[in-house]
């Protein structure tokens, strides 16, 4: 093969302008991103983007400590879940390792009245919504399909088919407008979570079209963790994902997804814009999935160790710890106490997961139709009678 000749199936060269600027392990993608807290723990105070928008956060010491506690806690819970899966207690687990800042920052930016539509990896957002962290374990342990009350918690069920939930979020946001709940600082906003792979889905593009056309009060929060299972970002796009928003007529912002302060500040601003009637925003949180796609995946087959190592240097938790330490906002006792309380929470979670009973088999006939179905009732009865016929025979 001559020099410069592309192999069949190779990723085409990106255009010079607007190339997909994924730089594995680099400090920042070309074109930059909104960052308020550097990997070294330096607080930049505020950042003004090219369009003149200024993002900043100014938290109290307790609030900074609270963010740190959230990050450590969701990482610890995630680690416990990974361990449970390895021990055969969960059928599968989708780890959020590496994406804590994106999830905690955006999750804490939500107000109580805002509604979130997650994928199956948003355990950190779920935690920030105040939902019992055991809730997703029914799904991953195989005792139910989820089953929390989306409206009560303002957090929809996990959605597994990639991108489907962005349309649900858009429709919900249209309903917010129809209910007259936009146009004021106390209005409602909606956030839809998805990954870089989802941006290739037609339904995600349709949700962008709809949201633009109907000026829906929605924030699209894309966690670009660089891989869709094994496929790198170059297999999804030729331009940086945040720039796609321009084609749909609303702003796109790229943030350092490992920076909890940037995640919080930009999401809060976008949500406020939405609730004030200014329509959608696409946020691309530029981050990295440190673990496998799910526990069934082997990332060593498609990415190199040095890339993972370089991202470790940008760890979302270490930089907050460095900041708190430098600013003398926290001492060793605080960090030890946070670790200990996260450990206790994880152990409590472990006990409760192990105690989750298998459902009674006959309950699989429940909740197929709100109004019931004579066919399903007949099958339920036949099923129950069949099983009852084995009683006493040890079946």
């Amino acid at each position: 093969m001559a020099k410069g000749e592309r192999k069949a199936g190779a990723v085409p060269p990106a255009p010079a302008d607007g190339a997909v600027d994924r730089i594995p392990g680099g400090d920042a993608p070309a074109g930059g991103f909104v960052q308020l807290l550097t990997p070294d723990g330096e607080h930049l105070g505020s950042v003004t983007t090219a369009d003149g928008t200024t993002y900043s956060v100014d938290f109290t010491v307790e609030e900074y400590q609270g963010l740190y506690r959230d990050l450590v806690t969701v990482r610890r819970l995630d680690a416990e879940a990974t361990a449970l899966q390895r021990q055969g207690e969960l059928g599968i687990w989708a780890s959020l390792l590496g994406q804590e800042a994106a999830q905690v920052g955006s999750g804490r930016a939500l107000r109580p009245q805002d509604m979130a539509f997650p994928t199956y990896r948003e355990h950190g957002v779920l935690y920030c919504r105040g939902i019992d962290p055991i809730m997703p374990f029914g799904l991953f342990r195989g005792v139910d399909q989820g089953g929390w009350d989306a409206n009560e918690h303002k957090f929809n069920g996990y959605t597994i088919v990639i991108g489907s939930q962005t349309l649900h979020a858009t429709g919900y946001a249209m309903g917010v407008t129809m209910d007259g709940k936009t146009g004021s600082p106390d209005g409602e906003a909606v956030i839809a979570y998805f990954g870089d792979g989802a941006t290739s889905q037609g339904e995600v593009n349709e949700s962008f079209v709809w949201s633009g056309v109907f000026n829906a009060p929605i924030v699209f929060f894309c966690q670009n963790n660089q891989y869709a299972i094994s496929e790198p970002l170059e297999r999804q796009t030729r331009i940086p994902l945040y720039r796609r928003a321009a084609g749909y007529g609303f702003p796109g912002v790229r943030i350092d997804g490992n920076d909890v302060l940037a995640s919080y500040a930009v999401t809060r601003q976008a949500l406020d814009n939405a609730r004030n009637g200014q329509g959608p925003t696409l946020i691309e949180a530029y981050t990295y999935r440190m673990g496998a796609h799910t526990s069934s995946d082997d990332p060593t087959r498609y990415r190199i160790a040095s890339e993972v190592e370089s991202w470790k240097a940008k760890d979302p938790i270490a930089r907050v710890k460095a900041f708190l330490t430098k600013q003398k906002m926290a001492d060793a006792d605080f960090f030890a106490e946070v670790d200990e309380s996260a450990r206790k929470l994880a152990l409590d979670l472990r006990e409760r997961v192990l105690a989750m009973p298998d459902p009674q088999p006959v309950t699989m006939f429940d909740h197929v139709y709100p109004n019931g179905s004579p066919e399903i009732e007949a099958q339920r009865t036949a099923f129950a009678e069949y099983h009852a016929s084995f009683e006493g025979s040890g079946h």
Partner: protein
Amino acid sequence: MAEKITLGKALNHGLRRALENDPKVVIMGEDVGKLGGVFRITDGLQKDFGEDRVIDTPLAEAGIVGTAVGLAIRGYRPVCEIQFDGFVFPAYNQIVAQVAKMFYRSKGKVRVPMVIRIPYGGGIGAVEHHSESPEAYFAHTPGLKVVSCSNPSDAYTMIQQAIASDDPVVFFEPKRRYWEKGEVDLDAPVSGAYPLHAARVARPGTDATLLAYGPMVRVALDAASAAGEDGRNLEVIDLRTLSPVDYPMIFESVRRTGRAVVVHEAPGNGGLGAELAARITEECFYSLEAPVLRVTGYDIPYPAARVEEEYLPDLDRLLDAVDRSFGW
């Protein structure tokens, strides 16, 4: 006061009444607003109820159904129009993977009370993708209620019942019957109407049972009339509900007549007729004088319009099947 109106107009009246009775009902789809839909089923509704109640959407079926799911979670009752049968497939993922399963997935905590209206079937001389009968795909999916109306009176009440139901309903409209007229009592309370989940005897008879739904009910009734001239008294059952099927009524009829012929436009392979034949055989075996026969579309893609009359089950094919049943 009963009026003689077309099936299309009856649907229009039914939608209007649903919009009047419940402020949470919204209609959404391509061209449903100013144009009133390509079949004019939503004619005049946007003018009277506004652009927020009758929403002209971007041209994308997954988007129509997917955003309707979100609106339903929010507390609305969306009525989606899919413009033609063959265009429902871009929305197929949303319907079977999301609409059908939201209630189950959430252990009954999230309801998506929505209606997906699909004009379906052939006989209007249309081009590809405009004449299909995809009902079996949806009837095969637990969590969806699938219904089809066959006459103006049913169209008027069934669409209102579908909208009022908390079950997600796929509502198949027999497009070649849109222009057929029948008596409709527009003042009758829906609460007292025949239930949405029940089949109906469209013509009582004693010698054989014809099972039909949607556009084929007219063909079955015509066949029963023609057979009557030969001294055969055929019963015609209009299924109305395709999932779940109202089996008790069907079993009662077939046990009485001893013969059953199922007719539908969709291809026979894996179709509703196959399911009906199997269930009747299981439940009525000792009452049957002949195998349950099927008259269906052929197992080919819907053909070009100039040959569709050969594809579609008609009076002669149905009578031929009746003859075979009696000849057993």
